């Protein structure tokens, strides 16, 4: 156990000096396996075998579909559609951002496509209408997490595959928390801006004109709004596995982007494909080395020992859940969401099963915790990406980000932890779970 803690310390130090997370874990794994006298020659084959699972193919396909839709021009249609509802109230543009991120989440498996698609348009627009730039950037970064909570979701795929759970059920578990968070962020956005005199708002339209606008923009967004229905419909009607549903999403997005929304050309289709493969590579590198790390840990029975230590602390379900939450928050800060999902599955899932807590409920707990991981420094890829899109340095947007996270995301984390019905209601309703 001491050796394990030393190895983890090395990993943390390596991550802090900005060595790619993947390699930090790789180095940690070799160090740990070597010092505990385990056979390190099987680490790579194990990583390769685990990565070669059929179900994991959902990952590149959902990334691809999200990027295709973002490129195809879906984001503007979604923005216009949401804007027709809430665009003309004070702070409405912020609400448009949040709601569009959530809608985009129903198409994309990861946050980055949402930031690229929504952030690029909305940050400049919000700034132009008088929003503080830090506020706008933070809002995009925080709302991008909604793309993980609303299925499809890459971290949920990774968590369920690593933990041997149903991907379909895990997808459903984070929907209600996702919707709640959407509402909270909309509210917080308006509240933060309530006394800001710089915000410009357009005069509200008469009801009739507003209804016409909604109908028009809804018509134009129809192909985009249909996509989540197709994806989720295919999965929950049993027509397709999540992996196949992801392929359907890609094959649907290509002609929609090329011929309907026309944002995609044959040329940019190539560039987007390469981008999707590269992004998959960034994520798979982390996964591959984490599979290796987890193997080294399991060889030494580390999860079992950690479970014993944690259960020795208390045998009260709620106390343990609270402790696990704190640990997940810490893990989420240090690493990104993908790493967090793997670590949660191998370290905490056995404890959860032992305590008799529903693993799908725990999937939602992990989902909301690690959504936070993506935007909590030091390793906060989505936060930095939003900063890049908003062309701001970290110190300009870190304060509003922390305000959104502490008042919005954190309460949801504890709500999901202690109210299992939030996550189990939909799986029970739709899968008879």
């Amino acid at each position, binding site marked *: 156990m001491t050796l394990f803690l030393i190895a983890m310390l090395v990993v943390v130090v390596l991550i802090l000096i900005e060595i790619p997370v993947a390699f930090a874990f790789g180095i940690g794994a070799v160090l740990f396996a070597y010092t505990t006298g385990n*056979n390190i020659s099987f680490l790579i084959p*194990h990583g390769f075998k685990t990565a070669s*699972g*059929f179900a994991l193919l959902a990952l590149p396909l959902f990334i691809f579909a999200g990027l295709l839709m973002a490129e195809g021009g879906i984001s503007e249609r979604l923005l216009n559609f949401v804007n027709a509802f809430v665009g003309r109230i004070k702070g409405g543009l912020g609400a448009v951002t949040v709601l569009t991120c959530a809608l985009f989440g129903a198409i994309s498996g990861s946050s980055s496509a949402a930031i690229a698609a929504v952030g690029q348009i909305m940050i400049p627009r919000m700034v132009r209408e008088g929003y503080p730039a830090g506020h706008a950037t933070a809002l995009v970064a925080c709302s991008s997490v909604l793309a993980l909570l609303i299925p499809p979701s890459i971290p949920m795929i990774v968590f369920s595959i690593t933990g041997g759970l149903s991907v*379909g059920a895990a997808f459903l578990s984070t929907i209600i928390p996702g919707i709640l968070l959407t509402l909270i962020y909309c509210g917080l956005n308006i509240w933060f801006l309530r006394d800001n005199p710089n915000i410009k708002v357009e005069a509200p339209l008469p009801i009739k004109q507003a209804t016409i606008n909604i109908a028009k923009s809804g018509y134009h967004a129809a192909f985009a709004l249909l996509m989540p229905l197709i994806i989720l419909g295919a999965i929950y009607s049993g*027509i397709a*596995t999540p992996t196949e549903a992801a392929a359907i999403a890609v094959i649907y997005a290509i002609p929609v982007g090329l011929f309907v929304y026309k944002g995609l050309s044959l040329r940019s289709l190539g560039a987007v494909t390469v981008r999707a493969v590269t992004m998959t590579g960034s994520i798979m590198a982390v996964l591959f080395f984490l599979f290796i790390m987890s193997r080294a840990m399991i060889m030494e029975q580390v999860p079992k020992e950690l479970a014993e230590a944690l259960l020795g602390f208390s045998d009260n379900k709620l106390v343990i859940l609270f402790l696990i939450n704190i640990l997940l928050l810490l893990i989420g800060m240090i690493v990104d969401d993908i790493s967090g999902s793997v670590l949660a599955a191998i370290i905490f899932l056995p404890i959860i099963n032992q305590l008799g807590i529903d693993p799908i409920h725990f999937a939602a707990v992990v989902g909301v915790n690690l959504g936070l991981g993506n935007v909590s420094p030091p390793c906060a890829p989505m936060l930095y990406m939003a900063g890049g899109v908003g062309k701001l340095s970290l110190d300009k947007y870190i304060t509003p980000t922390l305000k959104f996270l502490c008042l919005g995301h954190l309460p949801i984390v504890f709500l999901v932890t202690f109210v299992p019905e939030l996550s189990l209601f939909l799986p029970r309703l739709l899968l008879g779970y």
Partner: protein
Amino acid sequence: GEDFILAQAMTTDHIFHASSEQFMENLKAQQSRYNVEYHPGGDLGDWTSQFEQAMQGVIPMTMTYGASEFDGRLDLTWLGYVVDSWDSARKAYGPNGPMLDVYNKILAENDLVALGLIPAGFGSITIRKGVGKVPTNFPEDAAGIKMRVVPTPLAIERFKNWGFSAVPMPFAELYTGLQLGTVDGRAFGPAVEIWQMRDVLESYILTRDYFEHAFWLVNKQWWDDLPADERKKMRAAADQTLEWAWNEAEKIDSDYLNKVRDYGIEIVELKPQELEKAKKTLYAHEWPYMEKVVGPEIMEMMRKIAGIN
């Protein structure tokens, strides 16, 4: 003492687990200075992976099935309609039966030694909830049914010959596959595995097309490098365990079948003429196929065991 890993890929209600626990006790009773580091539930990889890791010596001891990916001849373990009762199964596969030697000749070429064969029971097909079909007459009933088989060529061969569309699928993806309807049913299921997946299943059709038995494997080099007295202790502990397993397995198997029945899954027997027809198809296609892989000498012996000429 020294630690060594014993791994197996099944859950704790499987006979692998009970056998492992027996073995650990027996080894302690032998006062071995070796200590078992036990990894159940497949945390070190699925059964094909554990087979490979035993080959490479990463896991010195495992209970697992024959992964024909590494040696096509190992498909012999899945061969259909070799034995038809627990008695004949014990004679062929049990302690002092002829099959262990046959297997050990093949395994030696893969750097492995089988300490014995662990019985799991007769395997049959099952259909998931919501399909509403009960195929008993092959190939007529089988058309259009997607049947999961273990990922080996022989398994695909059998279910194609019976008229199913055979879908090879790793064990880890099976439950989700049944739940989401990727497959309509699964083959190669002994009662314990039906019990594990009971909540997604509708009927269990007792084709009893093969007798499921697994290898208790050790890495050959690791085994040969053990001090002679320790090897003897381990052998003794293993023999005791195998004796126990073969005495208990039939009861465990029928207990699970009863539990499956009581849970409400429909249990269906084949009619005698349906069984005859099913056997005939296998003997006509699958057996010659196997003969091409393992040669006539072994198949002659299999025919003798099965009582066919």
